[in-house]
């Protein structure tokens, strides 16, 4: 017997797989069903009763999120009975809701707000005082609860139980006194706690980081990828007026489903910290042109002396595939054979078996693939060794982080030319002869490849500070002075060339263009 089931929803016939619930089936044909407690990434407890539908042959309305499809089932989602139930359930949900939308942080991306305007829109008929509950309840290091706004959908509890696998939240009391609270002796401090804010259909749970900083409708959203670890969760950068305000997860069934860890969300804070905005020559601020020509001259002297075996490049797992590829291509043209791979050091205590990986670099896979295309890439430890031995005279490094110890960093001072392209100032930038300002991950277009080999697209959301520009542009400028003409109209052209030449990217796609859209047109996210 086949696993496909045929049923009718609102008179329209469709087939879907066995085990799917009616709500998901209805989504296929676009039949509008409202819901609060159901979430595609979580189990269905059917507590909000908002998704009630009529099934022919059943005496009562059934919750569509909890009812699996059955052969020859006939479902009505728009009958008068269903619409009345939907409106009445909404009225019940709103009975004790404070309706303080103008001062609520969720306003503009709130499911309840949207449902009310879609399905109800009438005045409250309750003429007694609303039930009062704690307004600012501290649940943990990142989360604040407004118990009055809570509609008791239990999505947050299920996120803790099923995603973070750490049951820290529970419902206490009953009836109109029921409210969300932490389990006895617990705090909401698991590494996935801010997902509870994302799934909250109202403004009950708010993140302390984002709380009161911005209204949702002022934000623009740009799809991108988290650069916090090798998982590369798909995310959305929410930004306004050239500043990033938060990162939220984006649905991607292959990588992160609907979730993202708290640490990853806070990576946006580093974007503007200790930036390199102007170029420097041996620690002194220099003009951009002179920095480029100094870098080129340093390499030219080696080329003239035919000492290219003393030159090396460092590919970085924190830079995009395109940036690494362009540097590798220039190195090939110049005859440089020493290729090193760098990145942040492993952090074993960061890893878990949910999403987080001990490798804190977004593009280890891609950088290695490009290194292997070049030849035999060496590790950072070998780089430190070569520096200490004095086996190198020139080094061209991509930033940001290169895990070198103090002795090896000190050895950078003795190099004839050390070109370092970095978005951030760090312990290496003081020891290099040429420091070029590069754009950070939120400011570039490009791709990164995660630990599974899935290539995803980074998209520029904010402008880089000062003279900073993408790595590949800096490389092309230095290369032009060396007589290696490399010019690409955009990042896409680099990617297409790379996907033809580097075998590891043969099947990767660059992804569609996604200009920033204002969140008020993107619909509610609850």
């Amino acid at each position: 017997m086949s696993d496909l089931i045929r049923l009718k929803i609102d008179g329209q016939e469709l087939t879907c797989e066995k085990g799917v619930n009616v709500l998901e089936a209805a989504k296929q044909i676009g039949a509008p069903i409202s819901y609060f407690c159901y979430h595609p990434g979580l189990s269905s407890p059917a507590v909000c009763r908002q998704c009630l539908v009529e099934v022919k042959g059943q005496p009562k309305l059934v919750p569509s999120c909890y009812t699996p499809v059955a052969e020859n089932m006939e479902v009505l989602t728009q009958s008068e009975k269903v619409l009345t139930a939907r409106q009445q359930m909404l009225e019940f949900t709103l009975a004790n809701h404070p309706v303080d939308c103008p001062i609520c942080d969720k306003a503009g991306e709130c499911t309840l707000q949207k449902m009310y305007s879609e399905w109800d829109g009438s005045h409250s008929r309750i003429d007694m005082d609303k039930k009062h509950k704690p307004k600012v309840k501290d649940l943990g290091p990142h989360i604040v609860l407004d118990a009055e706004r809570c509609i008791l959908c239990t999505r947050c509890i299920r996120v803790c139980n099923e995603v973070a696998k750490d049951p820290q939240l529970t419902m206490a009391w009953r009836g109109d006194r029921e409210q969300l609270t932490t389990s006895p002796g617990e705090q909401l401090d698991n590494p996935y706690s801010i997902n509870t804010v994302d799934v909250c259909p109202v403004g009950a749970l708010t993140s302390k980081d984002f709380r009161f900083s911005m209204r949702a409708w002022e934000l623009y959203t740009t799809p991108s990828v988290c650069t916090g670890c090798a998982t590369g969760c798909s995310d959305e950068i929410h930004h306004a007026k050239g500043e990033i305000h938060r990162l939220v997860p984006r649905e991607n069934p292959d990588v992160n489903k609907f979730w993202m860890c708290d640490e990853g969300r806070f990576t946006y804070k580093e974007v503007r910290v200790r930036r390199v905005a102007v170029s420097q020559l041996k620690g002194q601020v220099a003009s951009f042109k002179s920095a480029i020509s100094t870098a080129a001259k340093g390499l030219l002297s080696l080329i003239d002396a035919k000492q290219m075996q003393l030159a090396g490049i460092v590919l970085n797992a924190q830079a995009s595939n395109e940036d690494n590829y362009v540097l590798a291509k220039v190195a090939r043209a110049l005859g440089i054979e020493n290729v090193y791979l760098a990145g942040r050091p492993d952090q074993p205590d960061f890893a878990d078996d949910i999403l987080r990986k001990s490798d804190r670099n977004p593009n280890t896979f891609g950088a290695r693939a490009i290194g292997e295309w070049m030849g035999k890439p060496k590790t950072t430890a070998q780089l430190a060794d070569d520096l200490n031995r004095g086996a190198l005279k020139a080094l061209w490094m991509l930033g940001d982080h290169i895990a070198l110890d103090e002795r090896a960093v000190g050895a950078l001072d003795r190099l004839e030319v050390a070109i370092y392209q970095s978005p951030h100032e760090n312990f290496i930038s003081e020891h290099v002869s040429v420091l070029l300002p590069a754009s950070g991950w939120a400011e570039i277009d490009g791709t990164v490849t995660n630990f599974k080999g899935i290539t995803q697209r980074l998209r520029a959301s904010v402008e880089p500070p000062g003279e900073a520009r993408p790595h590949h542009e800096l490389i092309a400028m230095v290369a032009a002075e060396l007589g290696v003409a490399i010019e690409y109209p955009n990042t896409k052209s680099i990617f297409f060339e790379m996907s033809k030449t580097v075998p590891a990217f043969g099947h990767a796609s660059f992804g569609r263009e996604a200009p920033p859209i204002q969140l008020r047109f993107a619909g509610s996210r609850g």
Partner: protein
Amino acid sequence: MEPVFKKRVSKATILKLQRKNSFEQSMMLPAVVKGLGVTLRHFFNNVAGGERSEAVTVQYPEEKFPYPPRYRGLHRLMHREDGAVRCVACMCCPTACPAHCITIIPEETGNGNEKRPAVFEIDELRCIVCGLCVEACPCDAIRMDTGAHAHPSENRANAILNKIDLLKNATLNDKDPHSTAIQGGVPAWRDTNKTP
């Protein structure tokens, strides 16, 4: 009257007429005297005429023209009963503002009011005095009923009113600086005769 000169130029015709050359017209004196009489009549009526005075001039700034009650003047920010700023930094007014002249940076209060503006600035040079901010405000925190004009200033920075200035403006019109509005409006719809 016969023209003394007539010439056709392309599509138009030029005519030159001879004026009637009387003595009165060439002197113009009687008309001048007549006009001066009208002026003098109005002058004496207005200065010494009492009831018959027709003067409408307002002696600004000693005397001011009464503005209509809904005249939109300089903004003011209202206080709460305890003197704190009434605004909850909901950002409805900068959202509604067509001139983008309102800047608010919110902060947490730490008390039951939860949120207030840390910075509240209105650029009175940009403001087009449309009053949409007042209509958008859910808390009756911003009003334009001071009846005052935007102050002249010597540089642009002085035309930007900050939170302190706007809170001071609360006393411009009212003796009582506190807003008397009920938070959330008057619940007329709770009248059970009106709603089922």
